């Protein structure tokens, strides 16, 4: 666990619960909703790519979430208080959230977690995304585009209608490769072949992924053959505090030969792909 003079890994200047107004809230496809909130504070200035907030999803008669829900920041700005999320409507909390109407209010806590290891001096980055991973990496894509860094994007989805490539790139230019379960192009073998071709043709400075454990394991294996490429993944785990306090969100990582439990909410959510221990799932 890295240390600074505050005796802990500081991820943000300050973290607080922000009461926000729902500025925009709409379906993107059959399963995902886009949410834009307006806060008083300068969240755009305080938040870096890869970071997340915890959302206090407002309860409804039938759905009464208690814990906050961790959500990656999908975007910020242009107003200082403007912050965007893109989320999959699945369980109690996200279904309750989906019922929130424009003009309504909700609280979010953050910014939380670390950021992607992006350096403006990079020449070329590669992003491999599936599902919610897309929301997490969108700010990184924007950052890379703004820095004039070349982007190669591999997007994986069940079917073409699930892909959301426009939502991912948001106008950024990228070499785009789309793969699908429906036509077999998203199988591990096909993606491996595609990735090797891309890596061999023009190895990026860094490769980022989020949203699929299978892809993560594939990339970890591949990266062994490309030692010069930095690899990073944004991970998920059940959370309570989201701030590193409760120790609920641990996963095991192999950091310099030393296997240790790290907190996804604090030392992560972004970890070096090479450090991930391909643990079995517990419980």
């Amino acid at each position: 666990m890295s240390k600074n003079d505050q005796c802990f890994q500081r991820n943000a200047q300050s973290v607080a619960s922000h009461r926000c107004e729902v500025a925009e809230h709409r379906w993107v496809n059959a399963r995902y909703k886009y949410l834009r909130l307006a806060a008083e504070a300068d969240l755009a200035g305080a938040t870096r790519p890869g970071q997340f907030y915890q959302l206090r999803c407002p309860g409804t008669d039938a759905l009464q979430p208690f814990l906050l829900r961790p959500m990656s920041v999908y975007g910020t700005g242009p107003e200082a208080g403007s912050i965007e999320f893109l989320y999959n409507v699945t369980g109690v909390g996200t279904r309750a959230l989906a019922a929130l109407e424009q003009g309504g209010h909700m609280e979010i806590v953050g910014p939380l977690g670390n950021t992607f290891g992006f350096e403006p001096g990079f020449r070329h980055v590669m992003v491999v995304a599936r599902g919610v991973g897309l929301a997490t990496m969108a700010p990184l894509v924007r950052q890379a585009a703004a820095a004039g860094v070349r982007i190669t994007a591999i997007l994986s989805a069940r079917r073409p209608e699930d892909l959301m490539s426009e939502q991912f790139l948001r106008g950024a230019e990228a070499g785009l490769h789309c793969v699908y379960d429906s036509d077999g192009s998203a199988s591990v073998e096909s993606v491996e072949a595609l990735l090797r071709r891309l890596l061999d043709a023009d190895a990026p400075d860094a490769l980022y992924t989020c949203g699929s454990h299978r892809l993560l394991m594939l990339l970890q294996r591949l990266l062994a053959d490309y030692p010069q490429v930095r690899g990073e993944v944004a991970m998920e785990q059940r959370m309570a505090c989201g701030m590193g306090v409760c120790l609920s969100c641990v996963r095991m990582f192999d950091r310099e030969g030393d296997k240790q439990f790290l907190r996804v909410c604090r030392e992560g959510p972004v970890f070096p792909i090479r450090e991930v221990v391909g643990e079995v799932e517990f419980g």
Partner: protein
Amino acid sequence: MADLSVHVGALALRNPVMPASGCFAIEYSEALDFGRLGALVIKSVSPACRAGNPTPRVAETRGGMLNSIGIPSKGLAHYRRDVLPAYTGHGTPVVVSISADTVDEFAQAVAEMSLPEVAVIEANISCPNLEADGMAFAMTPETTYQVVSAIRRRTRHPFWAKLTPNASQIAAVAKAAEEAGADALVMGNTVLGMAIDVRTRKPRLGNVMGGLSGPAIKPIALRMVHQCHRAVRIPIVGCGGIASAEDAIEFMLAGASAVQVGTASFLDPGAMQKIIDGLATYCEDTGVERLRELTGAVELDRHLSDRWLRFAQQSG
């Protein structure tokens, strides 16, 4: 501005609000000024090294949550060197919470942590006693007496015994802790609970059962604070489901001298500061000059039952 200061025995606190162990760590300095809290209570440490319980470690329930974090620990030496120092420079009393597996280990660990920079030791005797088949020390008056008196023999530091709401005879347990020499009681810890995912049919916690905390348990913890307050003369620190200034007042009225806030911080890391501010507002609104006067000030009408019985006897 009302006087929010309180005493827990000899210990003076600038206000009664402190975190509950395991629900607070140095990272909250991003959200709170530690110099404005009543005390800083650190996550329990055990002398034995442990990894903690399998994930998933938390699950939500109605108005509360279950946790089975366990007490991940790298031992006391590591704790003293790498954990404790971060808490001691804030001008706020530091409370070290200890868990241990046996009576001797407990007493030894408390002795070892009775350091000048530590204001209070909290003995988390709600944790499993390996000599009693894993049943928590604080489940019976006997085992409570044993562990508390063993600890008392080894330390002159102020020490608080943290009781468990799973005990059925809470007043007897509280008395045992008092007689064995605890300086105060913390009432209380989580209530043992369980949840099952009806889709997967698996328990929601890797560890199957876990501790229920949050507003759901507030009425239980409050009742136990009241029962302890009637049973003992040592001060009580109330804990369980406190999420607002009104909750804190409720615990003080029931007999608490101070309060601990756990789960509420997970929903808002600034919760403790909001509670402190709310206490000041309550005092102003209701004309309370010294907050500490609320301790035990619930208005019980001792004749109510009799009056009711006489009244009810009129009916056929």
